[in-house]
């Protein structure tokens, strides 16, 4: 429909930048404000914007429901596995120091891995709640 032309074009222009910004917030969370939770919400917002403008079928072609439903427990699993990896090295749960040769790098790596778990769960949960509302509303 012609009426939505402006919204469609703008959305197409802006969506890559939203995703890029979400990744920036995730990986820059060690240095500035932000982290996994915020990045997950922003990434979910990207998909929600796409679904609002282009319809939910188009969004589900990009990210099917099954993928989102897998993401929800996968994040918790990544988090728990990062914690359990310390057991392998004979340390306490969630002690990241032995993950790399230098304990400092180990801590950094552990934080990034843990935040990856958070971003996966949060983005998956937000998007699947959104999908659930839409499908119930049909």
């Amino acid at each position, binding site marked *: *429909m012609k009426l939505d032309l402006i919204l469609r074009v703008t959305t197409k222009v802006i969506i890559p930048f939203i995703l890029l910004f979400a990744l920036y917030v995730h990986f820059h969370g060690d240095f500035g404000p932000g982290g996994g939770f915020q990045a997950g919400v922003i990434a979910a917002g990207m998909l929600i914007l796409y679904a*609002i403008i282009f319809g939910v079928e188009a969004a589900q072609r990009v990210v099917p429901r099954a993928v989102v439903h897998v993401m929800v427990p996968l994040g918790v699993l990544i988090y728990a596995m990062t914690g359990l990896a310390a057991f392998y090295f004979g340390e306490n749960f969630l002690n990241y120091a032995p993950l790399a040769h230098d304990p400092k790098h180990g801590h950094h790596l552990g934080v990034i891995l843990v935040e990856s778990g958070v971003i996966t769960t949060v983005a998956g949960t937000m998007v699947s709640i959104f999908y659930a*509302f*839409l499908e119930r*509303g049909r």
Partner: protein
Amino acid sequence: MFVVATIAVALALALAVTRAILGPTVFDRVLAGNVVGTLAILLLAVIGFLSGRPEWLDIGLTYGLLNLIGTLAVLKYFRHGDLAHDAEKDGSRE
């Protein structure tokens, strides 16, 4: 200098919220909400400069992006009565 800007932006925020509260129609409120989002970004930037730590401008980008998402969601819902309406599918509804 930034004190003046802070006062101006804070007063503008008060006026915009007033319009959002008074606003006779829903569209007035949406418009005022959009302005409140912009003013929150400006307040964040100005306060950062005022306190000498202007490093938090990433948050401003978050505000801007999510303000757009919220506004478009409200308007899409209002026009079609459904968030997931695909406008291209039924072109008959003008």
